């Protein structure tokens, strides 16, 4: 297992939205699993991080929650992307790419070939 990272401020919401976009309606455990797997276990999410973020997204109207039977017949609260959430995901994805490009440009090796 490599170095463990904390979830960066603001990125968790994007990860959750993206997860729900790819996998469809999912419960909290499933979302956590998926994010940890996607990060190849470099990220760990405890409940105290995950559930407030889910609630915040729900309050903002980007996701909706519903109690349902899970695949192995357990009752669980499932979160699904709303129309607003889909739009928000597109917007945040675009912004994230722009930011990433910008940071990458800043961190690019200098012309002289030296590394900072």
């Amino acid at each position: 297992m490599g170095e463990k990272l904390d979830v960066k401020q603001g990125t968790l919401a994007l990860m959750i939205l993206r997860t729900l976009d790819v996998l469809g309606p999912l419960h909290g455990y499933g979302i956590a699993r998926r994010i940890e797997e996607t990060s190849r276990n470099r990220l760990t999410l405890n409940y105290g991080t995950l559930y407030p973020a889910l609630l915040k997204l729900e309050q903002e109207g980007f996701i909706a929650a519903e109690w349902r039977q899970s695949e192995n017949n357990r009752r669980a609260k499932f979160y699904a992307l709303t129309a607003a959430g889909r739009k928000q995901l597109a917007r945040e994805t675009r912004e994230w790419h722009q930011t990433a490009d910008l940071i990458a440009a800043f961190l690019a090796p200098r012309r002289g070939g030296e590394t900072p």
Partner: protein
Amino acid sequence: MRQFRSALARLAGVFTRYREDDDLRAELEAHLEMETAENIRRGLPPDEARRRARVASGGLTAAAEAVRAQRGLPWIESIAADVRYAVRSLRHSRAFTTVVVVTLALGIGANTAIFSVIRAVLLKPLPHRDGDRLVYLRHSVDGPGGNSILFSVPEVSDLRDGVRSFAGLAEYSPWTITAQEKSAAVRMNVGLVTGNFFDVMGLAPVLGRLTRPSDDGPGVPSVMVLTHDFWIRHFGGDPGIVGKTLRLDAGTVTVIGVLQPAPMFPDRMDALCNMVVSPHHLSAQMVHVRSHRMTEIVARLAPNGSVEGARTEVASVYARMQRDYKEAYDPGSHYRVSVVRFKEAIGEQARLTLWMLMAAAAFVLIISTANVVNLTLMRGVRREPELIVRAALGAGVARLRRLLLVENLVLTIAGGILGIAAAIGGIRLLATFAQRYSPRANEIRLDVTTLLFALGVSVAVAFLLSFVAALPREGRFGSWMAAGARRISGTVRRQRLQRALVVAQIAVSVVLLAGAGLLTRTMVELSDVHTGLRTEEVLTMPVQLVSFADGNFQRIMASDAGVKNDYDRMMREVRSLRGVVGVGLGSTPPLRGSGTGLEVKAEDKTFAVGAATPRADVRTADPEYFRAAGIPLLKGRAFETTDRLGTARVVVINQVLAEKLFHGEDPIGRRVAWTGDIVRLTPFSPDWRTVVGVVGDTKDAGLDAEAPPVMFMPFAQEIALGGVLVIRADSNAAGLASAATRIAHQIAPTVPIENVLTVAQIKDESVAPRRLNAELISLFGSLAVIIAAVGIAGVLAFSVSARTNEIGIRMSLGADRGRVQRMILGEGGTLLVLGLALGVGGAYVGSGVMRGLLFGVAPHDPTTFVGVAATMALIGIVACWIPALRAARIDPATAMRST
């Protein structure tokens, strides 16, 4: 939008927390179970699987807490929790809470009530447009009744033409008219105004229109604008009033509008009319004679004008008038004009009294706050263990401070609310009281500003309370806890603060008591003042049989005989009532002035150049008047039935006038006469009259003023301009009022009969404002003393309980009970002496400002000061004695074991 939506959701979360907590718990449990199941699937034993899942979760409770923080608004919730906690903890110390809330309610209530009066009467901007640009002109001379002699029409025009600082002059002439309504005749006080009046005053109508320049002059219809107050009071706010006509004694007048609510000065007015309502006001005499002064002036400053500039200009214009018309300005009387802001003129009478009441109320608040601070300090000591535990569990200083602040806010706001409730009751009483002083009294109410004032005071007190308490400081928990709460409670700083507060309470109480004492002494002195009358069992009934409405003296003279006949009939019938001892008739009731003063000269007597010519109140009296009114005859004779039209002119003068005119020589048989420029405007002859009698002085200008000089003429020898029946009863004069009024109504059905008062009532009315002053300040003073006594007893009792251990040791080492008692008494006594000394000093310095409110007692009256100090000392000693007795009863064995 997004922020708003989530804010709404969070706010909703504050209220739905319990339901959602179950939901959250179920969700987290489900998560935990899924994770455990996954771990088991991977091959872990169930216990280990569950343990790992729990570790990964980071703690269910912590998670739930984090979600809750996101769900609601955490700070609201924690404050709500603090409030709940505060209420619970205050409910546990019920006695403390009650004392604090009631004490604060008294302080805040008194201040809120007085402040609302001050705001309405003195501070609030006038309802007039740009009301701060209005100034009032006052024309004065020396001598009684000379404070405001009004202006004549020529004077008004000189001022209007000569003073550039004025944009306009509003003139109004106070006048009385009688409106004949179906059920009764109604006397109305009106102002006769010129067309520009409302424009200059900056007032608007709420109904109809106001007068305008086209309503000026003769030959126009009579019109009337009702004041808002009269419209509500008399016409019940009838919206259809405009266009109605009122029947007057002469002619009719049409109501053209209703004025916005506005204070009328100097007297209340029921309506404002154009000049044509009174033919007299358009007569040559009114318009051309410089000494015929019947007009008040309010001026509006020009945009570039200032009060100072106006003063200078008015002074120079007035000096020119005095130069050009010497006969109208007797140099000995010191004619002068002053210019004051209209708002200040309106507040003038109330200012001193109200600020004194405000100061007294503030003192009560200071004392009650000091008491509450003391109580809080003591309670704080008992709470120290609790605070230490809280600090040890991680509450920071700021958090503890907030806890205290919330608790104190709950206390003081409860006090504030109770205080406001008390103020609502008090304000009504104060408004009635303020009626006597200010035409703005009807503006007194509890409005947002006064409520904010009460709230502000409550919050300020809460902050004060929260910051005097010592808190366990970080890094010192160890020493605090090790020391144990009891030792910490004895910090020198806190004890010093408590003692200083007690000293301050005593000092402030003494100041208040001194004020109350001086005002009460004033009342006693006033009630000891002899009115000059032999009896007060006298009923007075003014009956105005003559109407001046048409301003026609010829007509009045022609009807004079008939009028006198009616008076005779009235007196005959009243005399036959059971209980009546005598009935007299005169122009003026006893203890009142006639309102008309004229200059008097005596034959063969000249006065030093520059000295004011003596003036006397002009009155008439019939032969029975003096005996019925109880005015003692000192020399010569009273009038007789032979003193009638056609016989020699005679007068009776009072002692003041006799002294002024004859300087101790016998006035009987000497001749006197009315004199001065103005006599020719009156129906009184300037011929010589012989003095036939001298009567005693009566306090006609109020019990607190010198008796004014008076000259009586026989009622029968002059035209009857007005009449007052003076009815002497064997007992219960007040009981005759309704029967006498009925008789007057029968004989003169179109005449309003008002102000039927006994002499005792007239006297009482003249001292009523002072009595209320004295009562209010005494009330505040007693409150202060009670609160201060509770304060001193409480602090000593606390000191005793904190020193129980020490006292136990002293007693076991041989100190007897008396010694212990003396020790505690000594402790209280020192505070008492210090407080008394400071208080007497403060009262000595402060009482000077009250000079204007006192009568018959000097501001530094030693008797009052000694009495006040003795009273306070006595109460203080009693307050010290109770805890001292308790200290003496301490059982040394128990005391030492209890530590």
